[in-house]
C-alpha cells in the first residue's frame, strides 16, 4: 500500500507531462503542416451561357450517379481542342451512366476529371470545378477529355454542367440557382 502511494504522484506527473508533450507536438505539427500547405485557388471567369449553347457545346448529356472518387494525381489539363495543355492536380470521379440524353456513349461507367484535389502538401481548389458526393444523382453536360484515351470526360461548362436530381424530369444547379427540365433539353436536340 505504501508502495502504491509512493508511485501514485509519479504516475500523476508522468501522465501530465505526456499530455502536455502531445498537445505541444500537435501544435507544432499543425503549425508545420499549415505553413507548408501550398494552395492554388483557381478563379474562373465564365461567359454568360444559355441552355442552347450548353446543349450545343456538349458532346454528351447524361443522367448518372457518382460511385466514388479516386485519389488525386497530376494530369494534363485545359481540355484544349488544339492539344495545348499543362499538368495540374486533378481528381477523377467515377460515374455510373443511367441514361444517355445526347451522344453515343457505350460505356456503362465513365470518369469525370476535375482540376481539384490534394497531392502531398499541394492543394488545388476551385469553386467552379465540378465535385460529386457518393451516390449523388446528377444531370451532366460533358465533353471527351483531350488528353486521356480512356473513358475520361470533362464538364463542358464547369459547375454549370452539373444539375442535381429533383425529379426524373427536373434538375437543379446550385451554383446558378436555376432549374431545367429534361424535356427542354430534348427539344433542343
Amino acid at each position, binding site marked *: *500500500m505504501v508502495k502504491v502511494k509512493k508511485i501514485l504522484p509519479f504516475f500523476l506527473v508522468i501522465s501530465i507531462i505526456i499530455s502536455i508533450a502531445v498537445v505541444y507536438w500537435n501544435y507544432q505539427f499543425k503549425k508545420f503542416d499549415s505553413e507548408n500547405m501550398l494552395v492554388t485557388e483557381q478563379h474562373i471567369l*465564365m*461567359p454568360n451561357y444559355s441552355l442552347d449553347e450548353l446543349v450545343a457545346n456538349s458532346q454528351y448529356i447524361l443522367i448518372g450517379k457518382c460511385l466514388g472518387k479516386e485519389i488525386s494525381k497530376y494530369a494534363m489539363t485545359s481540355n484544349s481542342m488544339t492539344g495545348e495543355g*499543362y499538368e495540374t492536380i486533378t481528381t477523377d470521379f467515377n460515374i455510373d451512366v443511367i441514361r444517355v440524353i445526347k451522344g453515343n456513349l457505350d460505356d456503362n461507367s465513365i470518369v469525370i476529371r476535375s482540376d481539384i484535389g490534394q497531392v502531398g502538401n499541394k492543394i488545388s481548389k476551385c469553386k467552379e470545378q465540378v465535385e460529386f458526393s457518393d451516390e449523388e444523382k446528377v444531370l451532366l453536360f460533358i465533353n471527351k477529355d483531350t488528353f486521356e484515351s480512356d473513358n475520361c470526360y470533362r464538364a463542358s461548362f464547369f459547375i454549370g454542367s452539373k444539375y442535381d436530381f429533383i425529379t426524373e424530369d427536373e434538375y437543379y444547379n446550385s451554383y446558378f440557382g436555376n432549374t431545367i427540365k429534361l424535356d427542354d433539353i430534348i427539344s433542343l436536340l
Partner: protein
Amino acid sequence: MTKLRKNKKIAKIFSFMLCFAIISTLFAIPSSAYTFETGGKRQSTPVYFYIASQGDNRFVAEFQSAMSAWNSAGFGTLIQYSGRRSALVPSYDGYNTVTFGNRGATVALAVTNITYYTGTGVIVESDIDVNTYNTFKFSTDSALVSGYDAQSMFTHELGHALGLGEEYSETEATMYYSMGMNETKKRSLHSDDISGLSALGY
C-alpha cells in the same frame, strides 16, 4: 477492510488519471490538415505583373487600362506592369504572369490562379491565363466588332490577383462572376469592389 477501501480509492484515482491521459492524447492527435477557404491579400504592393511575349500586343494596352482602374481606387499603386517574358502556361514560378493559349471550348474566358500558404494566407503569386479560344474585343476595335471586352476581363482578373473572390449578388460589380459578350461595365470599379479592397486591409 480499511486497507481494501484505500486500495479501491487509489485504483479509482489511478484509472481516472489514466483516462485523462488517454483522452488528452486522443484530442491532441490531429485528425486532418486544415486549409482556409480563400487566400488572404498581398503582403506588399505594388504587385509586379509580366505579360507573356506569346500574347497579342493589344492585350498589353488593355491590361494597363485595367491596372489603372485598381491603381486609382484610392489605395495607392496596387499593380505595376513589368514587361514581357516568355511563358506558355500558368505556373508557380515566382513571377505574376499573364499567359495566353487556346484552351479550347472549356468556355472559360480567363482563369486566375492564386497561390498562397495556408499558414499565413498571404498570396505569394497570381497568374492569369487567357483562353484565346474566345473572341476578345479591344478598345481600338470598331464598335461593330463583337467579342468579350479584354479590358473588362483583365479588370476582373486583377481583382482576384489582389485577393478578391467572385461576387454573386451585385451584378454591376467588376468581380461579378460572369461576363456577357460586348459587356464593358467591369472596366470601372463598383463601390462593392472598393469595399472589398478596404475589407482586405489595403
